[in-house]
């Protein structure tokens, strides 16, 4: 008894420590290298100052492209996720095989990182924002489909049954009794995903999928450090703006909930 308690108590911390050590050895992580790198890093940062303000205005249009990518990617993701979520939700799915298929789609799109989708689409359709939009749309199904399906499974079945009891079809029951119940949670999940997609679309630009991220990688490759700093400032502004926008939409929607 005493021995098992000892085991239970220490087994997790010990395993955790072993895992940390194993990973440090595996990756060759060393504090010494880190400290040795500090002068290089400060040198690099020093090279970026001051920002190249003359490039600020020309960079606004790629920044807008990044937001447009994130926005369109999210819109397409919603269009794809709603039907997938309905097919994946226990209480709405027409049959078990369909449910498993829909859940498979959700698991697959979530597991494969958006940057992998972006690399595939860049090879397929070429450089530019289109592969980025496709990658965001498809990868977002993994998260939105899951969150939507969970919201659908939590609806009060009473009203759905009441709509079916008047002789309405399944689609009508979904439209009139399920959708109204899940709207607030759908809006919240979608805005959250939009915030993520704004940041993701910057990263996708690094692999050629357009927007401000593409400008960043180009500036880096051409050693234009002052321009890089301008781009970082613009990225900061873009992310802040998009989070502010989605927060105010969220507050507006939730405020409406409370009022009515």
């Amino acid at each position: 008894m005493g021995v098992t308690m000892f085991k239970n108590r220490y087994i997790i911390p010990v395993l955790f420590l072993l895992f940390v050590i194993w990973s440090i050895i595996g990756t060759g992580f060393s504090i010494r290298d880190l400290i040795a790198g500090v002068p290089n890093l400060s040198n690099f940062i020093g090279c970026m100052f001051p920002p190249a303000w003359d490039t600020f205005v020309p960079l606004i249009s790629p920044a807008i492209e990044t937001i447009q990518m994130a926005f369109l990617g999210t819109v397409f993701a919603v269009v794809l996720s709603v039907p997938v979520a309905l097919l994946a939700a226990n209480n709405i799915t027409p049959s078990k095989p369909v449910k498993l298929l829909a859940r498979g789609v959700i698991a697959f799109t979530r597991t494969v990182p958006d940057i992998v989708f972006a690399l595939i689409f860049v090879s397929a359709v070429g450089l530019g924002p289109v592969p980025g939009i496709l990658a965001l749309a498809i990868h977002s199904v993994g998260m939105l489909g899951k969150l939507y399906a969970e919201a659908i499974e939590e609806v009060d079945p009473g009203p759905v049954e009441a709509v079916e009891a008047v002789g309405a079809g399944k689609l009508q029951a979904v439209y009139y009794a399920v959708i109204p119940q899940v709207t607030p949670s759908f809006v919240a999940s979608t805005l959250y995903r939009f915030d993520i997609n704004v940041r993701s679309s910057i990263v996708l630009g690094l692999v050629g999928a357009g927007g401000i991220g593409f400008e960043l990688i180009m500036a880096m490759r051409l050693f234009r450090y002052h321009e890089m700093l301008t781009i970082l400032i613009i990225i900061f502004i873009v992310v802040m703006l998009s989070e502010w926008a989605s927060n105010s939409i969220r507050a507006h929607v939730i405020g409406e909930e409370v009022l009515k």
Partner: protein
Amino acid sequence: MLTVNHLRKRLPNGKLLLRDINFSVGEGEFVAILGLSGTGKTILLRCINRLTTPDGGEIVLTDNGNPLNITQSDAGEIRELRRRIGMIFQSFNLVKRRSVIENVLIGKLGRIGMVRSLMCRFADDDIEMAHRALNRVGISDLADRRAGTLSGGEQQRVAIARSIMQDPCLLLADEPVANLDPTTAEVVMEHLRSISVGNGISTLAVLHQPELARRYATRVLGVRDGVIVYDGDARLSDDDFEVIYGCNDV
């Protein structure tokens, strides 16, 4: 009007809940179903509009002289059948985030094409009919309120208006006033009686109190141990009460 013969229903766990249910309901009758909690009264009602599939027996609904065998219906026929049967639930089952008038219009969905109903277009006639239905249950001033903001009694009246929209020949009510205070319950029961009498709608209502049955029903069915143990006058004698609710183990 409605005839139920040898109805059987088994629970998923294998227990035979309804063993042999036989009764019929005539044109315009208001029949109360009484019985202990858990005897299968709700399931009995749900067999009649096929929210549940019975395991055996026969249910026949005769509307305008056309007999319709409920037990043998396929999916299309089940929808056709449900259009003619209104249902009132204990928990009202309104779509709380929609307006009252939209909830009433839901009663028309069974008769509207899929495409048109998905585009949210109700005919002017239907909208007018919905307002009349609300007027009928005395809440025409609440048409534009969000259903979730109404009191329980008001919500149940919206549910009644939703059923009126179906122009049903049969109304099923499952403990329609069990969640309401006594005064509000009176109002709702009065409305149920009034549409039953006024529109000649046969009503089959599970009630949680024999007292309500005595006041509003024309007849009482007592369910116990999977069969109908009482079928008769709504005024129960002490012996009748014992047959339906009594503890006969001692």
